[in-house]
């Protein structure tokens, strides 16, 4: 009886837990905050955890989570993309225009993804080879995309979308398809970044470009590749975003880029690069919906939502900064 199995395991499991928390501290914090909100709000108003609202919370922001995967990679590299909101608006309109013109649905889904890859690859070339800071390139791209979109569509909404095109409204086992996209893409990207050489190289370049260069990584090529990949996630996000409703508004969604960047940052991505995972950004995207939905269920005016989000951003980043200073 002196050594029960559970006792023997305890020291090991607690150190494993510590290790896990150290590696995924921010992700754990976001998850815990999410749980706290869900528990507290559902105690006050049980309807919060009704199936309809859960679906709404998780599926409604799935496209933000998908876009935040690519944004996380970009920020890990030490870059930024402020054009992602405009890009999603443009790609969704391309998808919708193709759909109402009678193209097969797979074309309507594929073309925006390819266009996204192309545009972001061009951005990547300008950043990596022409050495223009990403924020400057993407600031310019915002204007080009915004202006281009409104000039072409004249702001007319795209309606009469064929039902088979509306992929975000498909369900499998009663669960909306965006949820599957979000979960599968997050896990795939997370595993890829942890184990694949290309994925690991992102952390290497984000951590120290010159060190990465000496071990044989070509940062310029990697940057273009990561931007192209980011464009792919933007394309998928755009298709999910554009097929959520029966119409596509063919305008650029306001402040969408900030929501996506914020999801990545709250999820634990260090803006200086080199640290963070896509699990955190996806949790953060769900966390946003949970908070905005909580305001509704607690009868708080939705006009306070942005203020609450602002406090959350500052609190998480402050906590992160303080934790890092303790380690040093």
């Amino acid at each position: 009886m002196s050594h029960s199995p559970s006792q023997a395991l305890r020291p090991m499991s607690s150190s494993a837990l510590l290790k896990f928390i150290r590696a995924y501290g921010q992700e754990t914090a976001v998850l815990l905050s999410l749980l706290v909100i869900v528990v507290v709000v559902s105690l006050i108003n049980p309807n919060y955890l009704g199936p309809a609202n859960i679906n709404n919370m998780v599926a409604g922001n799935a496209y933000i989570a998908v876009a935040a995967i690519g944004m996380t990679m970009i920020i890990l590299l030490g870059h930024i993309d402020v054009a992602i909101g405009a890009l999603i608006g443009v790609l969704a309109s391309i998808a919708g225009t193709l759909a109402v013109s009678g193209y097969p649905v797979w074309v309507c889904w594929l073309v925006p993804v390819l266009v996204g890859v192309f545009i972001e690859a061009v951005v990547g070339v300008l950043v990596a080879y022409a050495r223009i800071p990403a924020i400057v390139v993407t600031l310019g791209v915002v204007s080009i995309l915004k202006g281009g979109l409104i000039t072409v569509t004249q702001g007319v909404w795209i309606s009469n979308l064929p039902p088979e095109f509306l992929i975000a409204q498909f369900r499998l086992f009663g669960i909306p398809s965006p949820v599957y996209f979000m979960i599968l893409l997050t896990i795939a990207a997370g595993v890829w970044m942890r184990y694949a050489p290309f994925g690991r190289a992102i952390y290497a370049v984000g951590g120290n470009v010159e060190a990465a260069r000496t071990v044989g990584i070509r940062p310029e090529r990697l940057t273009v590749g990561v931007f192209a990949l980011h464009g792919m996630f933007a394309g998928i996000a755009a298709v999910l975003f554009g097929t959520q409703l029966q119409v596509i508004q063919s305008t650029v969604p306001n402040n969408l880029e900030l929501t996506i960047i914020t999801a990545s940052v709250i999820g634990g991505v260090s803006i200086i690069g080199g640290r963070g995972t896509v699990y955190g950004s996806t949790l953060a995207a769900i966390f946003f919906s949970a908070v905005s939905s909580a305001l509704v269920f607690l009868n708080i005016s939705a006009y306070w939502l942005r203020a609450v989000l602002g406090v959350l951003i500052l609190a998480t980043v402050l906590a992160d900064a303080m934790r890092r200073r303790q380690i040093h």
Partner: protein
Amino acid sequence: MLSRYVFRHETILALLLVLALALSANLSDRFFTVDNLLNQGRMLTEVGIIAIAMTFVIITGGIDLSVGSILGLSAITLGVVWKTLGVPLPLAMVVAVLAGAVCGAVNGVIIIKSRMPPMIATLGTLALYRGLAEGISQARSVRGYPEWFFVLGQGEFFGVPTQLWVFGLLVVVAAIILGYMTFGRVTYAVGANETAARFSGMNVDRAKLLIYTASGSMAALAAVIFVSRVSTTRSDMGMGIEMDAISAVVLGGTSIFGGRGTMIGTLLGILLIQTMKNGLTLAGVKGDGTIIVIGSILILTILISNLVNRKRD
């Protein structure tokens, strides 16, 4: 010796501006009328005032994404303090500008104390300040300002729009501070090498705090002018104006990495953007077509400037 001036970013910009002016005048005979030019001055003032302070911010290697939200919050403060609390309007204007200064100081304190990158800190306060504006106003607008208040945004002074005097004065003062005073030298030093600046005994934190506070105050001043120009207060005022201001500053040759930039460059950047907007609009291009050109010019100018400068290095 000559090539040093020819290849300066500001020279390239000035040439572009002359070209844009000539083209605009060619495209429409309404461009070079006094009325049109003065009216354009009215349009560029708000972005311009914000871009002045943003130049200092970016030269220190920072960025202030929250200026649009500070503009919104200051506008709401003005409206609420005057209408709801019944404070006399001149005092409410002061309170509004002070509110902006406080917002800016909060940015500064967060950035200095937490060592958080300015982009993230001001991304947080962008959401926070806009959220406060929306929460306080509950999307209700404030109207019914007295006639005298519109002098600032709609009136003239010696035939020139009132706000253009304010803008001109601020540009001159800012150019002198940045180019000829100790504070300007400190600003460049912080952006070029913050650690070196600290070791040289410069009060880096004080400089940063002052600059972010100034950035907030300028956004608030722009808010008061904005409200006076459009005769109403709304919580969504100034949304996205940070991007216009940053574009103008960067187009003006200020390096986003800090340490480099001039007030003349920023002024040229603002004038060039406004000229192109106006010229293209008068030539019949829809408002949205004009921003495509501006985005392209932004990327191309920096690209050319990079290439020219890399060859010379």
